[in-house]
């Protein structure tokens, strides 16, 4: 029994120590947090940065910013796949980094939850604003307020393989400018017997929302829009149906293949030469540089299409941005950091490292764009901002599924879009 008593005493001691540690832990952790959240420190969170981007931030940009301002910035990173999940849960729990990178359609979903700080008051005195494309600045707004500034852009335009067009008897002067000429070019490629003859056009199908991104451009070119003046979904409008009919016709007529889905690994179909045309962005050049360097010089960017001959070229862009957390302890410092990252030299470096196009007009002649088809940057002037819907993440997937159903001939375009309208209105609580 004596031993049993000793064991009891020993257990009590362990429990006491454990209890003391449990009581002390929050104070210790809080002390660390307080230090990190002090006025002279900030945090920034990026999504999907390459090793080069991480190095640039950690070894170059953030130390330089700290030297100028005396503000120490801690660096956080995550992957794109779970990015919105991480940003939403961090914002909800008040632990979001002070400055956060935002995906192309994240602004409205986060701003509508009051997770981001409106930056209009800061922007009012920001001299650099006029150097950015207006449409790209507008892409960071929601409900009449600005929440984010463009870091770099994935501006879409009509891309072609020069060699494959040439094999079909077309030169650079014959690049299509409207839907009919685009379709005619695809038919010529199909008849050419080249490597792209089986699938002349790759419409951006991937495992994400590539089809939605393509259809977004077509519906804009047709003069349509996602929502009516009353906020109701209007994909089944005449313009929406015309855009989908046009897209589906390529699949019906053997000018595109529903199973040509890019998985994200290796060269994409345009770079691989499996297709001769695509609505793509500058990441096609990045893809070529990584997977098939010889293909880069064959890729030419044309003007975004117009639905009718002589119509206005129209396109859209997926613009990654920087915003400030609504819970930022030092919003002035956060704005200083964003301003610093938007300066000409830094913006050029970041656009290059992220593999996108600059959002600044004065970077059209950026050094890293030398030798690249000028159509990539020229397309920026035709960008129409994304519709700022709080449910855009869900809606984009719904659009992708509806378009996929239509191109797979599982539903008529009009029926698929009517069903889509009903689903979107339900999502939007209408």
């Amino acid at each position, binding site marked *: 029994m004596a031993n049993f008593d000793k064991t009891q005493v020993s257990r009590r001691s362990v429990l006491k120590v454990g209890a003391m540690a449990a009581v002390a832990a929050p104070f210790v952790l809080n002390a660390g947090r307080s230090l990190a959240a002090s006025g002279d420190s900030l945090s920034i969170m990026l999504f999907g940065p390459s090793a080069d981007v991480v190095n640039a931030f950690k070894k170059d940009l953030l130390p330089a910013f700290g030297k100028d301002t005396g503000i120490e910035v801690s660096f956080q990173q995550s992957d794109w796949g779970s990015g919105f999940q991480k940003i939403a849960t961090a*914002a909800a729990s008040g632990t979001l980094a002070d400055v956060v990178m935002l995906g192309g359609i994240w602004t409205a979903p986060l701003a509508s939850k009051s997770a981001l700080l409106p930056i209009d008051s800061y922007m009012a005195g920001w001299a650099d604003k006029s150097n950015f494309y207006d449409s790209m600045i507008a892409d960071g707004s929601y409900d009449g307020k600005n929440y984010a500034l463009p870091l770099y852009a994935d501006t879409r335009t009509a891309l072609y393989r020069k060699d494959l067009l040439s094999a079909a008897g077309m030169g650079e002067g014959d690049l299509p400018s409207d839907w009919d000429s685009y379709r005619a070019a695809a038919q010529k490629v199909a008849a050419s017997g080249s490597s792209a003859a089986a699938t002349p056009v790759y419409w951006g199908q991937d495992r994400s929302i590539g089809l939605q991104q393509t259809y977004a451009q077509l519906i804009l070119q047709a003069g349509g829009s996602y929502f009516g003046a009353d906020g109701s979904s209007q994909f089944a409008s005449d313009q929406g149906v015309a855009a989908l009919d046009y897209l589906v016709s390529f699949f019906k007529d053997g000018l595109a293949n529903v199973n040509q889905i890019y998985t994200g690994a290796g060269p994409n179909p345009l770079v691989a030469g499996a297709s001769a045309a695509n609505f793509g962005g500058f990441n096609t050049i990045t893809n070529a540089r990584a997977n098939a360097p010889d293909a880069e010089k064959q890729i030419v960017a044309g003007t975004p299409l117009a639905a009718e001959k002589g119509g206005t070229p129209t396109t859209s862009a997926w613009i990654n941005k920087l915003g400030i957390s609504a819970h930022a302890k030092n919003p002035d410092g956060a704005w200083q950091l964003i301003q610093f990252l938007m300066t000409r030299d830094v913006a050029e470096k970041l656009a290059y490292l992220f593999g996108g196009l600059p959002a600044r007009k004065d970077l059209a002649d950026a050094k890293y764009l030398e030798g690249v088809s000028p159509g990539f940057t020229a397309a920026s002037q035709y960008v129409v901002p994304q519709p700022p819907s709080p449910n855009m993440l869900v809606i984009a997937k719904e659009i992708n599924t509806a378009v996929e159903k239509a191109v*797979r001939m599982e539903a008529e375009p009009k029926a698929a879009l009517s069903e889509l309208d009903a689903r979107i209105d339900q999502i939007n609580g209408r």
Partner: protein
Amino acid sequence: MSASPSRYKAQVRRAGLILVSPAMVMVFIISVLPLGVAIVLSFTRYDLFTAPRFTGISNYIELFSDPVFWQAAGNTVTFAVGQVGIGTVVAIAVALLFNKALAGGGIMRTLVYIPQAASYVVVALLWTMLLDPSIGPITHAVRALSGVQPYFLTDAHLAMPSIVVLSLWRNLGYFMIIILAALKAVPRELLEAAEIDGARPAERFFYITLPEIRSAVVFVVITWFLGALQMFTQSYVMTAGGPVNATKTLVYIMYEQAFAALNIGRASAIAVLLFGAVVVASLMLRLAGALSRRAA
């Protein structure tokens, strides 16, 4: 001074309770409490940012009227039944093979078990490459043999069967080992007596081996099936739920509702329904196991 027997028993009982209480508290915190929270949240509209608002059974009504929910439920059952149905038969067949004295049996057992050691993400990425329409060696082999270009992960009719096959490949080793262990415990004298009495191999399997390993098989079917009902990673990594929702499962749409739509109430309703389905499936499978034991 020594304690009386009854006092000693009380002390032992109290000590026992004290010793298990940390584990019970952890189980309560990790399992019971989240389940309770999920049930409560399933009757609310909650977006993480504002306080939950009670909405009655509206989440359930909206789910039941959503065709994508039913499609996901159908996909989930198809995956679970397909994988466990085929997988159990294959696991028994492979275990029977390894139960015989084979040259290199140990190495082959290890090879069959190795995929179990890899995470689902790794396995899914590996099979995505193997089944890639351009560079996938399996695609090349099928095309060379049949002359037809297969699109394993992008054809709506092939995507789910492809995921079933890779999941089976990944899980086979674990369940095969369980059945193999049960086979090793089958009394040899029973099999030898049946052989002397003229029973053919098939008769020995169905009348002696199978009844003897019934408990292990029931365990395999229950645990494999319940795990399969929660399939997510393969769809997320390999097909993103496509094409046209063909590989979306209940857990997948639960994830979408929670972290893309920020509709925690609806996601919780899916979780509660899935929990109910798991409980019902578990009870039915256990009942089936008990009935077959009684019949034997």
